[in-house]
């Protein structure tokens, strides 16, 4: 028997430690190019995770291995405890690719019908078309659809097997701001039912806005893994701003957790990795008031983490084709 009205939390409460995605020491080489250089990754059922990184970081290579489209050179990939291909045949995984993957001479409805016919468990064509917001163009030839409509069609095709894991590889490339927003609204709404969502993006704001967790890739390695807030703090720390008459920069720099400090009249700015400690100190040990804590934008965090100043000596992929 099953509980059909389960909330996402209840739904995953008894997953028995089974992970949606597990990567162990995964390497992928293309000839002498090392696209992925030892990635470990564990994603729990129900998480919405962004793989963020610049072009050539290994995002697509990683997703292709999770989807079983390519095999790791070494290391192990499992999805819901099975081989990716097995998970695909059971309809557990589906994906929205960046481009291609559509037949121009079929209609939108026929494309979904065709895809649905290949799975043992499937949802009705009408249902997935309406969830993707394209029920109005079911009879339109795919070749006549706009880029945004085609992307929604790919989304509809991905929903048709009612997958547990939805992988999206830079799904909004080439879409305008409004198209992107409504596309993500549809994904987000869908994920509320407890689906695991993994998406690759190089749009920082997209990762920040739509993911619960961000895995930052750079040159085929995971360089950061955490919530958007953690990522931002990790790279950039936070700035604690307060009104504190009579403070000196030397005194402020002495506060536990503080990195740098600046005094502007009565206003002090303390830059800190552990901003909580600094704030606690200021409020309990000094007369500071009007406390304000700000993080640097994720854009800056991203640049700080993926910048090339600590570039490894060799083996870094540089071709965009590997992104």
């Amino acid at each position, binding site marked *: 028997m099953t509980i059909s009205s389960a909330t996402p939390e209840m739904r995953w409460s008894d997953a028995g430690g089974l992970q949606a995605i597990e990567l162990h020491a995964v390497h992928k080489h293309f000839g002498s190019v090392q696209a992925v250089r030892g990635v470990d990754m564990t994603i729990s059922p129900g998480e919405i995770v962004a793989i963020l990184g610049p072009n050539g970081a290994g995002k697509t290579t990683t997703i292709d291995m999770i989807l079983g489209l390519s095999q790791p050179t070494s290391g192990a990939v499992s999805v819901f405890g099975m081989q990716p291909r097995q998970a695909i045949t059971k309809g557990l995984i589906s994906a929205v690719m960046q481009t291609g993957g559509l037949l121009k001479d079929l209609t939108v409805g026929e494309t979904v019908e065709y895809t649905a016919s290949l799975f043992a468990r499937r949802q009705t064509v009408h249902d997935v078309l309406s969830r993707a917001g394209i029920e109005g163009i079911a009879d339109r030839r795919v070749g006549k659809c706009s880029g945004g409509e085609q992307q929604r069609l790919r989304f509809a095709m991905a929903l048709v097997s009612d997958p*547990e894991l939805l992988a999206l590889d830079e799904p909004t490339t080439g879409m305008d701001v409004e198209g992107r927003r409504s596309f993500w609204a549809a994904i987000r709404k869908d994920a509320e039912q407890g689906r695991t969502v993994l998406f690759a993006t190089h749009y920082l704001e997209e990762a920040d806005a739509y993911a619960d967790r961000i895995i930052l890739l750079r040159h085929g390695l995971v360089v950061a893994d955490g919530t958007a807030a953690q990522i931002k703090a990790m790279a950039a720390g936070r700035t604690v701003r307060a009104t504190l008459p009579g403070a000196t920069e030397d005194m402020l720099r002495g506060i536990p957790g503080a990195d740098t400090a600046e005094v502007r009249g009565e206003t002090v700015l303390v830059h800190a990795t552990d901003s909580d400690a600094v704030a606690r100190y200021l409020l309990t040990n000094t007369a500071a008031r009007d406390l304000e804590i700000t993080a640097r934008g994720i854009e800056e965090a991203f640049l700080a983490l993926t910048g090339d100043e600590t570039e490894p000596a060799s083996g870094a992929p540089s071709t965009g084709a590997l992104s």
Partner: protein
Amino acid sequence: MSTVPSTFTADLKARRAPALGGFNLTALRLEVRRLLRNRRTVVITMVFPVVFYLLFGLHKSYSKLPAGHGNIAAFVMISLALYGAVFAATSGGALVSIERAQGWSRQLRLTPLSPPAYITMKVLTSLILGAGSVAVTFVVGRLTAEASMPGYLWIVTALCVWIGSLLFAAFGLFMGYLLPTENVMQLMSLILAVLSFAGGLFIPVSQFAPAVRDIAKWTPLYGLNQLVHTPLLGNGVDWTWVVNVLAWLIIFAAGATWRFRKDTARG
């Protein structure tokens, strides 16, 4: 009362792979519909054989001359049905090329559809279109009441042409995996026209110059063309025809398998 499994683990257990590697009639129907949407394919497989028959088979001085158990009109009709069926078979296989170019093959790898089921679907699509082509040609041949052969030969010959066209389903698949282009059928039309001439579908090989005739006998439509006319002519099977068909079948099938393996190798 037994323990209540979570919806998640129960859901995972309930999931299964589709039967027959994903092969199904809905997809097959859509494949056929796609082929029928291609105007070039429809014209060449359904219209060309009929028009050619009306132009070159009917009311000619030779039309009513005897040919084996029937007449020349029947002979011409069979040749043109073979042309249509071969084109249909090639079209079905060559769809692969278009699908690879448009990224559909990659998309299908994200579904349970197995490679054998995919190939089976392509071959059946070819056969369905080929059956339509042969049927249209034979029906027109019958209605115009000039082609003549015993009743059973209409059926036997139609089946020979239809099943024989499978040789070109293998050819289409080979070309489909070899040529990654959306315009593969333009090239195929040309190649098939040349092979049809060489195989004697339009003009009997016996009327070629001796040097050309010797070359023509090695081409892939020659043996098949001879074999499908054998029931009508009742002249017995020459073993070189069989060797021709089998040799080309092996070449096409091996080529298709080789390219297919290369294509589906998961790097």
